[in-house]
């Protein structure tokens, strides 16, 4: 349980990833409860994607543990991934598949069949406004549409936990606004982690922000608290100050 009585859905304890002598993620620990939207911030190469990959069970941690809804991502990986909606960095999708084909495949793997499968796909398509491009191969779509296909895939099974690696990257301002609205709508029922380096996004959708630099957590607070840490009151300045110190 978190402070305000919501169940903790993501638990990360001492998560560490080393590549040879380089430590990409260094004993990162945090919890995310239902209703929270955690903004995961940091300069490029700070370890954001690596942390998210370990949380999604894609990378094996060198040390530490992560669990989703109580399922350890390493020991009980399939159960953990079942309750997780994950958008990998760059929103990879199979280029030769059509949007419908791709989402149907994901829905099948998630165990849906028949009418429910159709409904799930339709719902995800509605949420991400993909209606106009359903029969197009993904490779013919613009960057923004590709990102939304990735997002649709993550939302398909209405998971209690969402981990989105740069969900608004490559979108135009209108699409960014739509995605943020969507995240805000879903927020009360889910634990959401989004990584970004767009600081205005943190203000717009996040209830909490973690700044990571050189693999370490350097700040973990609400956006408002973070802003007070610099005389200018700007998130940009706080970000710069914290991440430059660590680097």
């Amino acid at each position: 349980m978190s402070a305000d009585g919501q169940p903790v859905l993501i638990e990360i304890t001492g998560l560490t990833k080393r590549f040879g002598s380089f430590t990409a993620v260094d004993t990162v620990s945090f919890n995310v409860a239902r209703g929270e939207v955690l903004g995961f911030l940091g300069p490029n190469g700070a370890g954001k994607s690596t942390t998210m990959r370990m949380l999604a069970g894609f990378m094996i941690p060198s040390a530490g543990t992560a669990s989703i809804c109580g399922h350890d991502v390493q020991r009980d990986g399939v159960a953990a991934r079942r309750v997780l909606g994950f958008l990998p960095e760059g929103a990879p999708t199979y280029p030769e598949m059509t949007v419908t084909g791709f989402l149907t495949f994901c829905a099948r793997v998630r165990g849906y069949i028949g009418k429910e499968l159709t409904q799930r796909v339709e719902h995800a398509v509605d949420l991400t406004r993909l209606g106009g491009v359903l029969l197009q191969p993904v490779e013919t779509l613009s960057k923004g549409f590709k990102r939304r296909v990735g997002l649709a895939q993550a939302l398909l099974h209405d998971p209690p936990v969402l981990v989105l690696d740069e969900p608004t990257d490559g979108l135009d301002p209108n699409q960014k606004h739509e995605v943020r609205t969507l995240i805000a709508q879903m927020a009360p029922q889910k634990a959401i982690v989004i990584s970004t380096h767009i600081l205005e996004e943190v203000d717009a959708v996040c209830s909490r922000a973690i700044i990571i630099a050189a693999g370490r957590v350097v700040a973990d607070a609400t956006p408002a608290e973070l802003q007070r840490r610099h005389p200018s009151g700007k998130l940009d300045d706080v970000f710069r100050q914290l991440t430059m110190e660590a680097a």
Partner: protein
Amino acid sequence: MRNVFIIARRELGGYFATPVASVFIVIFLVLQGALTFNLGGFFDRSQADLNPFFTFIPWVFLLLVPAITMRLWAEERRLGTIELLLTLPITQTQAVLGKFLAAWAFCAIALLLTFPFVITVNILGHPDNGVIASGYVGSLLVAGAFLSVGSALSALTKNQVIAFVLGVAVCFVFAVASYPVVTDFLSRNTPVLAEIARRIAVIDRFQDFTRGVVSLRDLIFFATFIGFWLYLNAVIVEQRKAD
């Protein structure tokens, strides 16, 4: 098992959504036909069997099967879709099996399309169709063996060219392992290895099938061979998926 089939179905669909399928099947049939009729002297022999056909098929597979497998994992890694695939609620073993089965089914389709050869010999004479059937079973097993090798090697790299060249090279080693040029050399230096080389030779095992002999020993050999390489495939994916 359900997940294995879902993955296999997606993969197989992928072959036919791109020109991969048609190019592969056309080249396979043309190559196999040219070798059988010209080099194999299919008509000149005046014998109602498919021996010239089966003589060449392992060599055609040797060249073409790595062309199928080179993309299996290398492409997923290059596009980053491996991250999507392996964060779906499936196990890595299911992903490895699904991909392998799709590729194998694809080879089976290509092999089925050689049916005009069977019709031709049946019109021209009275072949032993049992021998032909066992030859086809053997061909499918050789394809499976080469596929398992190629699939495992494809997981080693992001580069499809490297995956292809490695695939051809390693399959070639298993193809010629029992040839005198290899075994003579080995028995002069290390007799133990010569014996091993003779036992792991894929083409030797295949020749039993073309003579109409389907032995349990050969079936176990192919099952073990494919199982070993698929296990290796899963280990390589586990180790290198995030590199």
